[in-house]
């Protein structure tokens, strides 16, 4: 993955840039010691690393604004950072960039049950938003699997999803307002505790813009009352097609499960060897979870099991209590760890129309043979979001490149069948150069012109999202 060459003039001004930031901000906010900035050289896409010029860790929105204003005036590229858990390289710095991280801003500012909203600083982790309200039986719905570590800032930048999106939606559907600091250092309040936009839906386009339009320091989030309970059912099938048809039939029957998870045989075997969850050795496994009172769960699971039985399952296991539910989820939750035990892996994130599942799985296994790399599939089957895990050996010369080429083929396949490159991880640097597979030059231009409005100098996270050749003239246009 190529990154633009750092600007030599900016590098040569490091002392001056740091001095200006220091003069305007508290002493411990600006970090430029290479021993300390090294910690910010990558995110969770750790195959790519580059220490930044400096790191700024503000305590307040005003300090974020001050730092951005200085960088804008001095034409210094800025890379916003939440918790650094991006799998797409969204927080990867360049050598000539200043990282502005919101990690120190993690307070709950307002908790308003009557209007069902919570207002937080965006350095707060996803899980601790729920943590702030769960004693009162409320929760924040989007649940990316990194939720223990990932920050709301990054969730907003990438429009993160999770396993329960089928019922509750993704970040964008649960975000009601933001405090956005623009590259020019203006502080804007967009949206709030009321519903829907006054004028154009700026909130909608800011969410998922991967830190390219501004830095979000505060967020108003929708919170919901917890359901009375939830229970899963596990089903095994001897063909992927049949599992796919079963998912479709469940949805057509009017049942809306809170999650439908799918695992294929390579993944089931790896997981079983690692966690011993007692999964059947079959071609495809579904975990379907429903919510409600005991009676409601019973009503829904009866319907689901009746449908499943028409597809000749090799296994049907219905959880009757929390312990059994835990055993059913154990394997799925250990899947990534299990694959990691076997080898290094790259996790993809394409989405496909659910009806294309059997075809896509068959093509992936053909490609796996072609490239000589194993792949396991975990899949949010209700919404079509796939997570193929390609196994490779990072210490073996050329394996990463081969793995990336295989990954690119899978993502092209997702687009070909009517899906997209990324369902919840974001484009970052990882899928940047594949964007032209999904979008025409005009489609990309329409998106880039939005950044022109918010960040005319293209200083904010500019080497991400769009193919480098498509953004070059804009990035080079910035006077140094």
């Amino acid at each position: 993955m190529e990154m633009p060459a750092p600007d030599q003039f900016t590098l040569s001004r490091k002392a001056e840039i740091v001095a200006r930031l220091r003069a305007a901000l508290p002493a411990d906010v600006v970090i430029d010691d290479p021993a300390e900035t090294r910690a910010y050289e990558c995110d969770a896409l750790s195959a790519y690393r580059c220490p930044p010029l400096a790191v700024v860790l503000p305590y307040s929105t005003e300090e974020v604004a001050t730092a951005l204003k200085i960088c804008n005036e001095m034409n210094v590229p800025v890379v916003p950072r939440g918790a650094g858990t991006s799998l797409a390289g969204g927080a990867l710095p360049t050598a000539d960039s200043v990282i502005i991280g919101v990690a120190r801003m993690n307070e709950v500012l307002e908790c308003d049950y009557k209007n069902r909203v919570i207002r937080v600083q965006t350095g707060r982790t996803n899980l601790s938003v729920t943590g702030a309200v769960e004693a009162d039986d409320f929760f924040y719905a989007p649940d990316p699997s990194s939720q223990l570590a990932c920050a709301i800032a990054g969730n907003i930048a990438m429009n993160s999803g999770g396993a329960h999106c089928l019922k509750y939606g993704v970040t964008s559907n649960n975000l009601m307002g933001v405090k956005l600091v623009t590259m020019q250092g203006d502080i804007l309040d967009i949206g709030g505790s009321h519903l829907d936009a006054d004028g154009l839906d700026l909130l909608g386009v800011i969410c998922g813009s991967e830190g390219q339009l501004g830095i979000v320091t505060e967020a108003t989030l929708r919170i919901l009352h917890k359901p009375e309970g939830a229970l899963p059912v596990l089903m095994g099938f001897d063909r992927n097609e049949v599992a796919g048809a079963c998912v479709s039939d469940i949805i057509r029957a009017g049942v809306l499960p809170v999650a439908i998870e799918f695992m294929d045989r390579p993944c089931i075997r790896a997981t079983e060897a690692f966690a011993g969850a007692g999964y059947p050795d079959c071609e495809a496994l579904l975990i379907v979870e429903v919510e409600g009172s005991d009676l409601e769960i019973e009503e829904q699971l009866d319907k689901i099991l009746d449908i499943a039985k028409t597809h000749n399952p090799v296994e049907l296991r219905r959880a009757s209590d929390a312990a059994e539910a835990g055993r059913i989820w154990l394997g799925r939750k250990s899947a990534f760890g299990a694959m990691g035990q076997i080898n290094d892996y790259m996790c993809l994130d394409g989405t496909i129309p659910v009806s294309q599942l059997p075809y896509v799985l068959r093509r992936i296994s053909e490609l796996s043979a072609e490239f000589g790399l194993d792949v396991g599939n975990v899949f949010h089957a209700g919404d079509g979001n796939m997570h193929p895990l390609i196994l490779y050996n990072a210490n073996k010369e050329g394996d990463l490149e081969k793995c990336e080429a295989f990954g690119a083929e899978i993502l092209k396949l997702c687009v070909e069948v009517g899906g997209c490159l990324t369902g919840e991880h974001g484009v970052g640097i990882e899928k940047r150069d594949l964007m032209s597979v999904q979008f025409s030059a005009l489609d990309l231009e329409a998106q880039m012109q939005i950044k022109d409005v918010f960040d005319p100098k293209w200083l904010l996270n500019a080497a991400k999202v769009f193919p480098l050749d498509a953004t070059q003239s804009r990035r080079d246009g910035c006077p140094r």
Partner: protein
Amino acid sequence: MSQTFKFKDEQDLAGFVQERVDPVFITGGQTRGVDLKHDRVDMTGLSGVVDYEPGALTMVAKAGTTLQHIEEVLKAEGQQLAFEPTILNTALGTSGASTIGGVLATNASGPRRIQAGAARDFLLGVRYVDGHGNVIKNGGRVMKNVTGYDIVKLMAGSWGTLGLLSEVSFKVLPMPTAQATLVISGINADVAVDVMSASLNTAFDVTGVAYDIAAQCAYVRLEGFEQSVKYRTKSLIDTLTVDREIAVLENDDSAAAWSSIRMLSAISNQRGDLWKISVRPTDGPQIVQKLGLISGIMDWSGGLIWAKMDAGKTARDILGDIEGHAINLSAKTGLKFSNTNPALAHLQGALREKFDPKGIFNPGLMG
């Protein structure tokens, strides 16, 4: 004399925009009563369901397809548009049939918006003709998609000012097989907001909470499978601590009550301008009081106020420091948004200029 242009083909529409130098007024079903004095582009020529996968909960349709047709096709599969599009014909005194493009371009969400989300939350993908006359696509037809910027959300609620929607894809949901509505009468707006908030703040998955100001009556809706609705109706009644009788409307009666709320029947025959005010629900009662409203609907737990006001009067001034916004939907020639913040107004204006550099799409709207 103004002309009307109508196209059956996206490419022809694009060719028209490429050549066009004068402003156009973009129309769908003309249910909103807006009447800009320009030549018209009638979008109803682009019509028809392109793709529907009930098992994937997604549909793709040309933007000029009527809402009625979409809802019929969905109903045949036991599915629906969960955001429950608003129907304003009677309240605005218009005829015509809403188009799916019009519904999404105006982000017209009804009572279930409080639980299920707005029209913009269900819109998954768009094709549109921009101000250069280029056909642009964004989003797609899958439910989870974070590939590139979300222009889809920007198009929802843009009232045609950023481009001409030619095709839309959207998420649909199962239509519940049973419903019930709790009716609590003889309570004022303050108590109503308490009751509605208390109802939403339970595990019982309430899908509608509205208050009729003149009737002094709050409605709380539950939907789902039959046994489940019965269980939750009883549980919710047991939970609510309200000093009034609670009546229960079941199935058809419940549906009729919500149809009337959705169409604003309580105020549709009144004279005056139709205002839509969005605030946080707990601020709803003070808006009602400040405006001196004796009738109107408070939907979305009190956060959405629909009211008729004498022509020439504005609901905007009373907002003051209260967070939210107000719009006069009867302003035929110049639907104005609040945009009190100059920095936001500047961003919106700059975006509009990028999407429509010739300034020809619905000038006058969203000023």
